[in-house]
């Protein structure tokens, strides 16, 4: 549905987007992640024809956005970072304007009523946008993007400024849209991507650093386990035991102390549930385990590590952390995927 090929956007000597290539299939929901200034919004603006690219091509539904802008834009509904609202209009007037602007041919009353129902703004339709709260304004912006039932919907940070209940509603909405639309959304809230997207594209400093299915990343995250264990017993011996125990790949004594109990952080091997085994071992040695806490490794950690690794700023501290491993595996698979598409290219051209 969407194909971005070697896209470059340069401002002077500054590359906002530096040779990005990826494609999005029909009905896919893709999360576009990246720290501030990574080039997310720039990419989206090029995708929607608001900005032009320095080089590279963008096609939407087979239409080149630069060469055939009018037709391509008809396929796209766009919610920019700041919803483009005319504050002096009422919601109804605004949506009608959007309807006219997009040369929509669907039944006006019915279509607009449906959209308002979907984003839950029916009860504010007669109100002036200036007087609406941030959350409602955001929803009016989303409603605008849905006018004309476009095949591709692009949201730039759709849930900013919404309250938690609204955020969940909007996420459900996006997920529902994903059934018969192609959706790209940019965000820096990771749970959002995890909750909504089929695929995650992470971009940093204008380059794609990871492009992976959400479930693959989640699986990678879950396959390694990490715990904080509180064990009453002599610290040095306990640590030595933990380090030598099969199934544990890493153990570290933490500074925390509770009477004669010390806290240790351990990482188990992939696919091994170390907990029961550890309990019996400790019981045998008569070192009571008085606390066991599973440390979740969140997508946040992965994300930060991927971004850091891509910048190669932080040097690896002695050990390779689990995040790092996952990050590396994700990045590697992305690199492979991209090189594979590179290799494919001459074939298809030939």
């Amino acid at each position: 549905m969407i194909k971005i090929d070697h896209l470059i956007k340069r401002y002077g000597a500054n590359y906002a987007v530096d040779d990005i290539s990826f494609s999005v299939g029909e009905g896919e929901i893709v999360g576009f992640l990246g720290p501030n200034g990574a080039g997310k919004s720039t990419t989206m603006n090029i995708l929607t024809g608001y900005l032009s690219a320095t080089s590279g091509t963008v096609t939407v539904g087979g239409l080149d956005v630069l060469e055939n802008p009018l037709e391509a834009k008809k396929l796209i509904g766009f919610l920019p970072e700041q919803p483009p609202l005319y504050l002096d209009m009422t919601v109804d007037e605004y949506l009608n304007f959007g309807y006219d602007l997009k040369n929509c041919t669907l039944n006006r009353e019915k279509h607009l009523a449906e959209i308002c129902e979907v984003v839950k703004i029916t009860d504010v339709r007669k109100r002036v946008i200036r007087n609406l709260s941030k959350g409602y304004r955001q929803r009016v912006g989303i409603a605008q993007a849905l006018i004309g039932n476009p095949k591709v919907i692009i949201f730039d940070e759709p849930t900013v400024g919404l309250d938690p209940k609204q955020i969940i509603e909007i996420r459900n909405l996006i997920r529902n849209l994903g059934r018969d639309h192609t959706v790209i959304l940019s965000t820096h809230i990771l749970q959002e991507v995890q909750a909504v997207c089929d695929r995650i594209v992470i971009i940093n400093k204008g380059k794609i650093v990871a492009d992976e299915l959400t479930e693959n990343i989640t699986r990678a995250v879950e396959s390694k386990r990490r715990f904080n264990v509180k064990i009453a017993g002599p610290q040095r011996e306990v640590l030595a035991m933990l380090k030598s125990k099969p199934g544990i790949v890493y153990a570290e004594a933490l500074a925390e102390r509770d009477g004669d109990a010390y806290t240790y952080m351990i990482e188990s091997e992939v696919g091994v549930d170390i907990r029961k085994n550890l309990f019996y071992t400790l019981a045998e040695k008569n070192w009571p385990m008085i606390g066991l806490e599973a440390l979740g490794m969140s997508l946040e950690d992965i994300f930060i590590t991927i971004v850091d690794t891509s910048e190669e700023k932080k040097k690896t501290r002695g050990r390779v952390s689990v995040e790092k491993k996952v990050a590396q595996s994700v990045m590697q698979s992305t690199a492979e995927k991209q090189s594979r598409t590179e290799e494919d290219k001459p074939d298809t051209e030939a």
Partner: protein
Amino acid sequence: MFAIYKKEMRSYFINAIGYVYIAVFLAISAFVCCFTTLQMQSYEVSLYFTIMICALVVLIPLLTMKLFSEERKLRTEQLLLTAPVTITGMVMAKFLAAFTMFAGTVLVSCINFYPLYKLADEARAADEYAEITSKLGPNTAIIVGNLVGVLLIGMAFISVGVFISALTENQLVAAVSTMAIILAMILVGALNSIIDNYVVRFIISWFSVLDRFANFGYGIFDFNALVYYLSISAVFVFLTIRVYEKRRWG
């Protein structure tokens, strides 16, 4: 394109600006008309139109200042530029909306001439020597000629305002710059009386919008002037389109 035109027209009438413009325009024109005709006991309207053209210095920026600058400030231009509308269509829609407002008020202000015709009728009715005085009264051809001229000058000024508005996101800056440029376009002709050099005078007179107006003032349809004013409008509308094109590529 029509959607944007409609939106702009609506925006003039839901904000104070449209009403302020109409009120100021009609007030000035009524006052000037009284002053130049009734007060002076004359049916001659040329002075009225000349003063009205000078009044456009203040009036035109009211119409054009927010056309693009506000969209840019509120980021609503993103909606327009990502919609299936060409940049040319967008610029033309806004230009035409401003021109519609302008032409509308100019036509409404024609009501000012009614008292002149009425007075002329009464004077003729009261006069026994009707044959001699039958030519008494305002000259309709001159009025129409002046109206056409004013509409054309206004169109040229609006195109300047549209262009300036596209350059800045500050309405005030847009308004003041537009005023300055329109004022310069009107006053530049005055330099001709000081400068001796023929070439310089030729160039200046080319830029002087008032010089072209003279024939309309006599009720003569001047084709050269028509082309001249339309060209100015086209050039500035074109430049506005280029501003948007360039920003996309920036």
